[in-house]
């Protein structure tokens, strides 16, 4: 991919006039500077910190060591890592299962309705994320809305423990990230040509076959985009598990936060950050791989 860009650049520069070259520089330089200071530099710092020794009051000592990486071998961290992946994966699947029919529903309404429905999806963003997560405490706690309702209907004798466990965290994550699934899905489904449904049925495909053979492949882009947009931030979440998970449901994000702010162990915090970056990179690389193959196939 890089040499493709490079040859492109060479031909471009060879034919461009000076003036055009100047324009291009004006456009490219700020972005390059921005990327350098806010992306490349911090990343390098994280890499560097991960091989240094811990300073007593935070910060680092300039002593190289690989011991921070050795610490990763401790099964405790594997457990947290596993839980993070599992919760993020579960959240992604749940968001997809809820978001897909919803996006499909919105996209198949008459045009004048669609914007109103989309607005309803977006409205929660107008409230602070923390406030919205705290609201779930009111709903889920032992004296909360759900328990009061269920016991007043005599469906339960004792209040259910709905809060401070994986269940609560999952609900919070699904709730928080659902819009990130719905919006890209809507964008693809809205462009879907609904007359293809007629054509498919006309050719003998029932609803299920039509969905699998026509709708799914043609909305795959939205599905992948939505899943990435949900999975990536969900893996690194620390606010939702902090508030709804209590002390029991720690995720990777909590660990990182804890190492930097609580334990003041910046090098190990950096190691954990790198692990998360790698985890997040894997699905993205797979995505690019698929997209590239598709491009070649066409």
């Amino acid at each position: 991919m890089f040499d493709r860009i490079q040859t492109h650049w060479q031909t471009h520069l060879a034919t461009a006039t000076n003036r055009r070259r100047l324009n291009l520089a004006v456009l490219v330089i700020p972005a390059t500077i921005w990327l350098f200071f806010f992306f490349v530099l911090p990343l390098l710092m994280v890499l560097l910190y991960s091989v240094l020794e811990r300073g007593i009051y935070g910060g680092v000592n300039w002593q190289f060591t690989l011991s921070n990486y050795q610490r990763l071998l401790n099964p405790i961290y594997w457990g947290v890592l596993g839980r993070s992946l599992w919760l993020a994966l579960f959240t992604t699947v749940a968001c997809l299962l809820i978001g897909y029919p919803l996006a499909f529903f919105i996209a198949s309404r008459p045009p004048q309705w669609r914007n109103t429905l989309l607005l309803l999806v977006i409205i929660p963003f107008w409230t602070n994320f923390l406030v919205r997560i705290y609201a779930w405490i009111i709903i889920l706690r032992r004296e909360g809305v759900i328990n009061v309702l269920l016991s007043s209907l005599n469906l339960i004798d004792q209040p259910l423990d709905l809060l401070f466990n994986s269940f609560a965290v999952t609900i919070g994550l699904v709730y928080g990230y659902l819009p990130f699934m719905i919006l890209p899905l809507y964008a693809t489904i809205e462009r879907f040509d609904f007359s293809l449904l007629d054509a498919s049925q006309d050719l003998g495909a029932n609803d299920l076959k039509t969905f699998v053979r026509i709708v799914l492949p043609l909305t795959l882009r939205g599905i992948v985009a939505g899943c990435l947009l949900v999975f990536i931030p969900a893996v690194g979440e620390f606010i939702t598990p902090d508030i709804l998970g209590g002390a029991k449901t720690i995720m990777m994000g909590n660990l990182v936060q804890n190492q930097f702010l609580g334990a003041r162990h910046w090098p190990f915090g950096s190691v954990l950050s790198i692990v998360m970056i790698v985890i997040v990179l894997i699905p993205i690389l797979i995505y690019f791989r698929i997209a590239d193959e598709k491009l070649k196939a066409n």
Partner: protein
Amino acid sequence: MKLAIELVDVVKTFRGQNQREFRAIEQLNLQIRDGEFFSLLGPSGCGKTTILRMIAGFESPTAGEVLIHGEAMGDRPPFHRPVNTVFQNYALFPHLTVAQNVAFGLEMEGIAQAQIRSRVGDALALVKLNGLENRRPRQLSGGQQQRVALARALVKQPEVLLFDEPLGALDLKLRKAMQLELKAMQQQVGITFVYVTHDQEEALTMSDRIAVLSEGKVLQVGTPTAIYEEPTCRFVADFIGESNFLLGQVIEQANGGLVVLVDGELTLSIPYEPELPVGKVITLVIRPEKVTLHPQTHHDPLALQGTIQDVVYLGTDTRFVVQLTSKSTLIIRRQNLHPGKLDRFTVGEAVKIRVTPNSMRVLEEGSLGPETASGVLNLS
């Protein structure tokens, strides 16, 4: 006579945004014969697509019944009906290749891969698309896409093939070529074609029979010749080709003929058998090409008098507008048979007009404006 499709008292109402009911199809009865090329012809919004969608199963009739080969369809879904559709926008699957598009319908039937391959090959050969099997729809021209849509429907070997304005997006030349090709293909494969179009010329060229529709009603069903030569109402005469309409009042009926007074000033004798009361207002339909123009010096006792109002040269023929009475003009077309020789008639010239009596068609409809009506009544 075996029927491919029968619509019995079919009604279709849609509920609009304001919840008001809208009758798209009213009490429709149609019988489409096995193996014929049947066209549904009518202006935009008359309900052609709605009829087609009810046959295919995408809409269900509000009342009435759709029968395919004598079998009532009821609420049977599209994928269980022995018909296939070629859609107006083709509706090709963009993520599949040409071959995959055509194979789709066969795969749904669970046919073996080897057989699918050979049938897809045959279908693509029939529509002359060999060599494009691995292209995607967006890499094809409009005409090629239209052929893929056709192959995709044909390969299923349906008993009836439905077409919704399949040539609408093509340019004129290609459209004409495809019209002939489609007609030839229909005769070759021998299946029933139900063809929706708003292009009267297209319907006349291709069809065995045509149903002319207006506002959800069938006005006339017949062969192209019958529709053109013997329209049963003013709408059909007006919609199919060009027509002159003269309003007249019956003043006498004798010996199988009518004497009609046109605009209170011109009497015409027309052969007509059915009984009509004296004083009845009728409409005369005269096709522009069935009238001949002659110079004033021409001797013909039956010729009418007129004055040329307008002359327009149209290439194959010349179109004249001739003032016939104080209220009515007549459009007349003359073929330009002789090369390089322009027509002698000029605007303002007095001419003689010959209308053969049996080329005038009588429609028992029409009404006169208030002042004409009273004026004519005094005469009778």
